[in-house]
């Protein structure tokens, strides 16, 4: 809140934060014990309410409405600046402040998206003051509070663009199932790549492109001041990919600020080069306890139109034995085609393993407080079932074999139960000191279908999409039964605790100290289990035809955060002010994992202890960072702001010869519209120019710098003994990748702020990029070594346009266009040559993992038989660049918000357009080049383009080029559609509720257009965590479509 932020002045930095911590603690303890300070506090009116009699206090009530539509505006922060008393408006925009001392008070109103309001209110002793407000929408939010590394600041003071997401207004209207959905399309420059169509698979977030060829490109996430772990969930069986970010419950979040690049993130230091998401969870407000309950019921759907499997039947010349006679063989005359059959085990209703499944969410929240204490408490239960179901034919088959039906988690192999709790408490210790406690707990239990463990020819989709084109004994599968595959149970249990304690102390009006300590702990257990006698599924374990096996993994990941800072201000004159900040941080990551597996289980056994073939393992990884920063700023006339600062970091993952690294930054923000000379004041309500420059880093993996020997087991003389070998050369000179960014921007507000524009150009270059250099095998020192050799560049343009398209008493229509243009380029590989393999490559002058292949130049069906053979296709001699992949270079999000009947009925729709990128359509490539069950190699009516792709990939003479399967995946999708109806006031008044609404929301809806020839442009095998992981369509389900009906009730 704004009354917590204000200004500061220079405070000298010291890197030795531990003593700084002691200093802060001492400073905090002073007001608790010092009589002088206590006496001073007694003079403060903020401490008066609790001691006043009823005749000396009054009540303020009122309603806040949208100035344009007249609809009530919820979640407006209404507070008395001097007293620290505040409340949030309810769904109808109503608020109530109790126990307000009589007299005149300044009431301030703030809400993201609206211009702040201030008004003096007279409160009668023992009476009620009623005051109503009409707030103007304000898309360019120059006076809004945003979070930076050195504390909260007004947006106008910051020389960077910071994307802000007001979460409560979205969660009730769109019913997110996952945090990634909340982030998708909300701010330019932040791109969310969907996970696969299985519950528990994670999406990824990329901010301003891909910085690193070798390291993870995830942004840093900070929740209530505590660093939150992203990346993989601790214990998930990795084949489906997952992200720990998905454990963050959107319904608990108040706001998310997106700090997009090093120009803004420099003071976050090492780990911040990929941007920073600053998350604030909901907090309590003074006043009567406000209860909110919500319930969601919905369905999950898998709507993909899966391809048919084909088989062209024939016989060799002069023989009668039926064989698979492919088109090219028939064209060559080696066999003759008799018939063509097709079968589709994923679409045939007797064999289809997909079905619509339910999802339920129940949540209850309370917020309130009195005197110096406020609270927010939230609990949520999710019971979600992924869109899988063992087909009835398989249930019957298994029931007959086992004598009992499959268990529920085998029939419905993708289930998720999640319990999320949050308790946030704020305590005003003295008028000058307050402390905040934030505690989140999440308990996740997840079942996932057997995806094959990342191996070849395994898992549900491999077995079905690679089926032979007729209904075999295994119901059209390749070699394994669907029921047996789904009988392999994959379970993950993950508990997460995130807690933080923040204390702020303002010993003097010009100095504010703060300290945050926190912990984010994930504790997980995962298992894969195949019970003895429940089928044979090749593809995991070590023993063919194994009868029972189990894999278990237990893991703990903990991140400790300590963040200390001070901000001071000095108003030299009315026109000129200075602001200074200093801070120090310490972070430590710990990961402890043990795993074991056992195969050939005994009857009735369900632990690896009962297995005859067992292995175990243990992994430990620790990493620590300390750093500190100083920052100084100058404010001239509250419209010209200059800020500069520097941060230094040292990290345990750096090489032993690498010292501290430094990340400087500087920014300028000029609210030019407030200059007297600005000539277009009638047209532009707001105009701001901004520029920022800064550096940030990403540290190498925790052990990349270390030379070490590794152990492995060796059978010798009938025993298995441990042996040692040089595992890695290490790199004593290893240092972080450092990204430098320049950012220029313009913010405009026009037509009484009904049209607002935010435009930003950025240029950032990652230097000392880590390149995994393949080592010559002859030296036997591991396969590769990370070296700081490369350079990667990202340039781009971001555009956000908000407009009030229509304002009538019946309908208000708001439009938001969010555009992202980003170009990624490897500037240098440091002299390390790229691989010569066709596919995704790291080539200088081209994007990270751009696609390369020998091009198919043309084809000519010379003999006119409708079948292409290799001598009828022309392929280029050398590889050429096909296009970029991973994140789309161009993205437009169009969000429409239709508001009917003064807000009683809302219709929201979001269109998502992505363009300019390619992918490897490897599923079809594999079906045509290996399984030989695709249409292009079996059906003579297949278009020649598809035949050319298949033949070229299968032909050594044509270089086995995958060119025909490197395909564009531009698309336009209706991402979100939501209809929200608020209960009319007369009905609300008749019920014991303050407000209520019903939301019907759909997500991942219709693909309105695409040039992608495969299943779905968003189907991808894995989520590309780092530059080294390649995105491709490989037997993966497209994202789940969900429909939800959500009821929100506020008491």
């Amino acid at each position, binding site marked *: 809140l704004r009354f917590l932020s204000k200004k500061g002045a220079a405070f000298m930095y010291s890197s030795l934060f531990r003593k700084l911590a002691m200093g802060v603690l001492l400073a905090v303890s002073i007001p608790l014990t010092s009589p002088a300070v206590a006496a001073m506090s007694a003079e403060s009116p903020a401490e008066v309410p609790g001691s006043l009699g009823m005749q000396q206090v009054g009540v303020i009530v009122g309603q806040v409405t949208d100035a344009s539509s007249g609809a009530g505006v919820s979640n407006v922060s209404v507070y008395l600046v001097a007293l620290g008393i505040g409340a949030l408006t309810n769904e109808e925009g109503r608020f109530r402040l109790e126990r307000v001392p009589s007299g005149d008070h300044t009431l301030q109103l703030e809400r993201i998206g609206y211009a702040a309001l201030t008004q003096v209110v007279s409160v009668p002793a023992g009476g009620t003051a009623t005051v109503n407000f009409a707030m103007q929408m304000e898309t360019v939010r120059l006076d809004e509070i945003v979070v930076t590394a050195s504390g909260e600041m007004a947006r106008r003071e910051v020389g960077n663009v910071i994307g802000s997401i007001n979460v409560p207004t979205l969660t009730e209207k769109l019913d997110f199932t996952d945090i990634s959905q909340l982030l998708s399309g909300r701010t330019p420059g932040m791109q969310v790549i969907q996970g696969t169509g299985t519950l528990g698979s994670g999406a990824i977030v990329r901010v301003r492109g891909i910085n690193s060829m070798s390291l993870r490109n995830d942004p840093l996430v900070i929740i209530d001041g505590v660093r939150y772990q992203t990346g993989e969930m601790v214990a998930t069986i990795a084949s489906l990919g997952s992200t720990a970010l998905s454990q963050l419950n959107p319904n608990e979040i108040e706001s998310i600020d997106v700090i997009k690049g090093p120009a803004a993130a420099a003071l976050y230091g090492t780990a911040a080069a990929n941007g920073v998401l600053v998350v604030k969870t909901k907090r309590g407000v003074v006043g009567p306890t406000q209860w909110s309950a919500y319930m969601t019921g919905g369905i999950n759907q898998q709507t993909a139109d899966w391809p048919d499997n084909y088989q062209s039947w024939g016989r060799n010349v002069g023989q009668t034995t039926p064989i698979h006679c492919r088109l090219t063989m028939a064209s060559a005359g080696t066999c003759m085609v008799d018939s063509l059959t097709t079968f589709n085990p994923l679409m045939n209703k007797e064999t289809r393993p997909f079905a619509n499944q339910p999802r339920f969410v129940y949540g209850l929240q309370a917020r309130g407080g009195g005197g110096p204490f406020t609270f927010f408490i939230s609990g949520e239960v999710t019971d979600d079932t992924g869109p899988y179901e063992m087909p009835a034919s398989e249930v019957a088959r298994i029931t007959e074999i086992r004598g009992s039906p499959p268990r529920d988690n085998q029939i419905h192999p993708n289930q998720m139960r999640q319990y999320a709790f949050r308790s946030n408490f704020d305590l005003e210790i003295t008028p000058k000191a307050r402390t905040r406690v934030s505690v989140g707990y999440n308990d996740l239990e997840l079942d996932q279908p057997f995806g094959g463990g990342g191996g070849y020819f395994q898992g549900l989709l491999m077995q079905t999409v690679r089926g032979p084109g007729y209904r075999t004994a295994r119901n059209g599968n390749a070699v394994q039964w669907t029921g047996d595959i789904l009988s392999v149970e994959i379970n993950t249990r993950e508990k997460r605790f995130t807690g933080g304690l923040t204390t702020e102390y303002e010993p003097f009006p010009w100095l504010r100290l703060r300290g945050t300590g926190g912990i984010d702990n994930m504790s997980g257990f995962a298992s894969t289990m195949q019970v003895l006698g429940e089928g044979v599924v090749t593809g995991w374990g070590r023993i063919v035809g194994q009868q029972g096996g189990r894999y278990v993994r237990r893991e703990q990941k903990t991140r400790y955060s300590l963040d200390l800072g001070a901000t001071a201000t000095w108003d030299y004159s009315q026109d000129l002010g200075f602001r200074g900040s200093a801070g120090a941080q310490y972070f430590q990551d710990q990961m402890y994992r043990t795993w074991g597996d056992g195969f050939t289980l005994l009857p009735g056994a369900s632990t690896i202890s009962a297995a005859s073939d067992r292995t175990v393992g243990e992994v430990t990884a620790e990493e620590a960072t300390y750093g500190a920063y100083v920052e100084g700023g100058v404010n001239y006339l509250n419209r010209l702001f200059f800020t500069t600062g520097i941060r230094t970091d040292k990290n345990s993952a750096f090489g032993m010869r690498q010292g501290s690294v430094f990340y400087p930054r500087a920014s300028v923000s000029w609210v030019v519209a407030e200059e007297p000379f600005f000539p277009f004041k009638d047209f532009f309500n707001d105009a701001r120019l901004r520029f920022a420059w800064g550096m940030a880093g990403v540290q190498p993996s925790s052990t990349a710098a270390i030379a070490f*020997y590794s152990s492995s087991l060796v059978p010798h003389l009938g025993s298995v003994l441990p042996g*040692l070998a040089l595992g890695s050369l290490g790199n004593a000179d290893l240092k972080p990748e450092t990204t430098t960014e320049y950012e220029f921007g313009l913010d405009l507000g026009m037509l009484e702020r009904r049209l607002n524009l935010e435009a930003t150009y950025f240029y950032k270059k990652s230097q000392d990029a880590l390149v995994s250099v393949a080592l010559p095998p002859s030296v036997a020192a591991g396969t590769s070594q990370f070296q700081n050799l490369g350079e990667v560049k990202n340039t781009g343009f971001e555009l956000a346009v908000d407009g009030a398209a229509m304002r009538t008493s019946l309908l208000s229509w708001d439009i938001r266009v969010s555009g992202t243009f980003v170009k990624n380029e490897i500037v240098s590989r440091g002299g390390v040559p790229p691989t010569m393999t066709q596919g995704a490559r790291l080539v200088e002058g081209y994007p990270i993992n751009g696609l390369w292949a020998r091009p198919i130049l043309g084809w000519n069906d010379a003999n006119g038989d409708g079948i292409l053979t290799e001598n009828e296709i022309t392929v280029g001699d050398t590889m050429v660049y096909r296009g970029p992949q991973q994140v789309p270079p161009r993205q437009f999000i169009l969000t429409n918000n239709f508001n009917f009947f003064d807000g009683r009925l809302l219709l929201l729709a979001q269109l998502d357009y992505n363009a300019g990128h390619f992918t490897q359509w490897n599923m079809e490539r594999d079906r045509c080049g290996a399984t030989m069950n695709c249409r292009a190699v079996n059906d003579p009516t297949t278009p020649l383009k598809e035949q050319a792709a298949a033949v070229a990939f299968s032909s050594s003479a044509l270089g086995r080029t995958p060119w025909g399967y490197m395909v564009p995946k531009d698309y336009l999708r209706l991402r979100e559609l939501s209809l929200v109806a608020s209960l009319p006031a007369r009905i609300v008044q008749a019920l014991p509720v303050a407000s209520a609404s019903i939301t019907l929301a759909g997500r991942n809806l219709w693909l309105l257009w695409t040039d992608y020839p495969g299943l779905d442009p968003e189907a991808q095998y894995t989520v590309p965590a780092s530059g080294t992981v390649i995105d491709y369509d490989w037997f993966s389900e497209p994202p789940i479509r969900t429909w939800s009906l959500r009821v929100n009730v506020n008491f």
Partner: protein
Amino acid sequence: MRSGFIDSHPLGRALLVLLLSATVGGCSPDDLLDVEYPDFITEAAIGTSAGADALRIRAIGDFAQLFNGNMALATTGALWTDELASGRQQYDFFDNRANYRRDWDISFRHWSNLRNQSLRAVEAMTSFLPDGPDKSTKIGHMKALDGLGMVLMAEHYCSGIPIGRIEDGKMVFDETPLTYNQLFELGIQQLDAALAVLPQSATDLRNLALVSKARALLNLDRPSEAAAVVVSVPTSFTWKAEFASGAVQSGLYDWIETSGNYTPTNREGNGNYDSCDGTGQGLPYICEGDPRIRIQRPHFRVGQDGTTRIYRLLDHTKPNYSITVASGIEARLIEAEANLRAGGSTWLTILNGLRATMISGLGPLSDPGTEKARVDLLFKERAYWMYLTAHRAGDMRRLVRQYGRQASDVYPSGAFFKGGTYATQYVFEPHEAEANRPDGAPEFVGCINLQI
């Protein structure tokens, strides 16, 4: 008073800043970066007898990996020749000998590991093990494996095999790669060194070194010297590489039994892979029902391509079955070949002696009468006695190099049974990553030549 001064006067603020800075200054923050790496074993741990022994154990594992680990010589060499065919879905360049992707070359990495590891183990054992027969045996063991590894590599790879190592943390390379003949010679040197250090009591290891040396000499076309080397090796001798589930797992088990990727063959070549009536150049490993090649018939599954029939190899149905690397049978076969090359008459007696005494169910062979047929018979006997033991690739090369056969008559050729034709590359190439050498190191550009 205090707050007034500090609050109102810039000097007061500066004073406060200085006080706070003094509070937090003065200790070493690097202590905060002390983290644990318990998974990693540092150089210091190697400098003990236990560490030296652990290096030795790993070298034994490296040999097992080279011989029959994942995509090791016993598997890839068998695909390359006529011993196995691929039932994989995707194109198998080993089976087709086409478009050979060097980045798939795992064996070269295994061999480099073996060579460097055995050298490190010998160095460590020399320093840290107490003198005595145990130390000599262990050092001799390392040298014998190193020498045999060179023989295996020279049998499969082109001329142009690079040698590198780590010295004082830096990569060091020999100036020029070795031809395969140079590698055979180097292998003989190492095997002689093993024999020099191995005590007489280490009978099996000495026999391993002798058979391996003879094998190298045979490849160098010095059959009489080879025969002389193995004369003392008893026919009953066998030396096996060990495998275990969860440790070094048998590659043949993985790729045939577990995953159904590969299958034994019958007369592979000319479009055939398992028909007894085929006209391929390969040997009829399945249909003759020879007891030396224990194959379950009919096939037990189809390959991952959905069509190729996969036959079960009964000697490779478990991940921990040991596999013979060298034996007294091989010693007698070397003697038989030397005799045949010398125009002698005992070669057939030797072959029939083995058939009569070392296995049941085989009748005696008769002399086919012609020189070519005698060679064919001898090499068939070698192929059957030493099926899937990484001998066949070397034998095929010797048939071309030493016996003047056409490669297209020796290797499966003509139409490939999955479409297209067999390619004409007959030797493996070192891993292309070998070119990634630091500045100043001798450049590696690949094979000197691809001659058989």
